[in-house]
């Protein structure tokens, strides 16, 4: 009876192609071995993006006009083009830079998770460039959401501009942008899958290879499982934090909206909106419209 069920399951087109136990078992370990690659790309790229984004946001709020224009252009370009295209341009463009060849030889000798350092560095650079632009907008919205009186109070005590930023404004900003930053991390983590297009052996690339070799899609389903293993708990945690913030602030202020949420290039996502009441969403949209435009 059980044998018969398994036989039916593995031969029926849908279950057999996507959820085939045999191929799932076969793909599980090789893909699990690539999970660290996806995670490291996401985490390191995102963490590098934090100081980068902060710096960009400062420059975008600077009184020096050329600096402001430059950063506006940078953010517009990054946010207005698909990350896929950014990957293709930079990943394949790097080797054309003079001097790259000479640098390449020693770097190629250093290998983590079967990926050499030239690939790691190029991939991390792309993620950095991409997420720094988004994070800059998160920081800017967060900093500008702090009431002006805070700045005035600190300055009237004789604190300098940067002291005020460091000890009064940023500590309050961080609390407000934490959920949005975690959402941004989830997006970055998922976007590491795009590196499959340039044969970086992260999870999706590995799954593609297995799927092609076995004529079966089950490996891709295994990959989806590993992504969800990270994104669902994080997404729930973000939602809880947002609700807590909204409660504490009594509807005023609250979490800062994700700059990715508005663009319309991507449909709304689980981690953008989960746990938000309609009120909070509309409020966040308002904040965003007034501040990003």
């Amino acid at each position, binding site marked *: 009876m059980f044998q018969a069920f398994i036989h039916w399951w593995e031969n029926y087109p849908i279950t057999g192609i996507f959820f085939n136990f045999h191929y799932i078992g076969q793909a599980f370990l090789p893909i699990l071995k690539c999970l660290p690659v996806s995670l490291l790309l996401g985490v390191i790229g995102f963490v590098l993006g934090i100081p980068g984004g902060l710096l960009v946001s400062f420059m975008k709020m600077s009184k020096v006009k050329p600096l402001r224009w430059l950063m506006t252009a940078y953010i517009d370009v990054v946010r207005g083009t698909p990350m896929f295209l950014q990957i293709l341009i930079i990943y394949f463009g790097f080797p054309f830079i003079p001097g790259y060849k000479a640098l390449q030889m020693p770097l190629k000798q250093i290998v983590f998770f079967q990926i050499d350092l030239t690939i790691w560095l190029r991939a991390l650079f792309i993620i950095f460039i991409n997420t720094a632009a988004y994070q800059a907008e998160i920081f800017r919205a967060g900093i500008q959401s702090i009431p002006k009186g805070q700045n005035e109070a*600190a300055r*009237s*005590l*004789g604190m300098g501009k940067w002291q005020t930023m460091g*000890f009064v404004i940023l500590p309050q900003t961080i609390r407000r942008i934490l959920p949005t930053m975690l959402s941004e991390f989830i997006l970055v983590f998922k976007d590491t899958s795009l590196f499959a297009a340039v044969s970086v052996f992260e999870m999706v690339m590995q799954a593609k290879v297995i799927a092609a070799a076995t004529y079966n899609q089950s490996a891709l389903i295994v990959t989806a499982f590993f992504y969800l293993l990270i994104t669902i708990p994080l997404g729930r945690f973000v939602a809880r934090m947002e609700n807590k913030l909204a409660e504490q602030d009594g509807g005023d202020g609250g979490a800062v909206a994700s700059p990715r949420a508005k663009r319309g290039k991507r449909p709304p996502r689980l981690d953008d909106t989960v746990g938000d009441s309609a009120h909070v969403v509309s409020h966040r949209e308002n904040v965003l419209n007034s501040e990003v435009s």
Partner: protein
Amino acid sequence: MPGEYQSGVNTELLRLKLESHGDVDIPDKVKNVSAVDSDAPLDVAMPADAIIRIKNLKKVFGDNVVLHDVNFYCPKGHVVSVLGPSGSGKSTMLRCINLLETPTAGEIWFEDQLVNSKETDVDHLRAKIGMVFQQFNLFPHLTALGNVELALKKVRKLSKEQAEAIATEQLEKVGLSDRADFLPSQLSGGQAQRVAIARALAMEPHVMLFDEATSALDPSLVRDVLDVMRDLAKSGMTMIVVTHEMAFARDVSDHVVFMEGGVVYEQGTPEKIFDHPDRERTREFLQGMID
């Protein structure tokens, strides 16, 4: 002599106003003043030892002239109350003193220093001028003690122990030593404002500016804050107080400045301003406030 204030009526401006509104009914007294003084220099005589001297202060936001021409001064140890309807420029004037707003024209002197000069070290100046805001503006991520300590550590560069000792002492002075470890969100409005006062006082300012310090408070909480301000005045602190608390202005001030439409409309001792003001508008305003 300190304490004997000159008349600060802005004669030139009044004359201009009168000319542009020829048909408006203006009391004879004002007309006379402007006629007699129209050739006199605009500069108002001010004693050089006054800690704050404001001369011909003008502030423009875009097309909006908020302060036309403000003149008054405050000798050391005195309390000057600034009264007037909302929109008369009281707060803007106060914020010009510590350069939270940049004056468009005129002079502000703090001790022997021209405040609105390019050479002013703004942070150094502000460390000597305490300010208390209508909305308290406590730092919500720090405890009451942390709020008072922060500038001591970052601006006066005191050690952790010294800063804590001073902060504790200041909180005690405003009667809040038992609230030292509370966050601003756990304090009542009156307590929050007293912490804000302690925070400003901890810097040992030479002058304190109060920008409608009690306007955002429940009526029941106003008294605690006013008591602290009264004690402070008694201790000899120089204070410039923008307020709607008429009883406080009358009892505590050495001098009252009544502002209207961006000018000092009338100023003098509390007795003069409250009991027999020269000008009808002053009387009307005060009447309105007391009713």
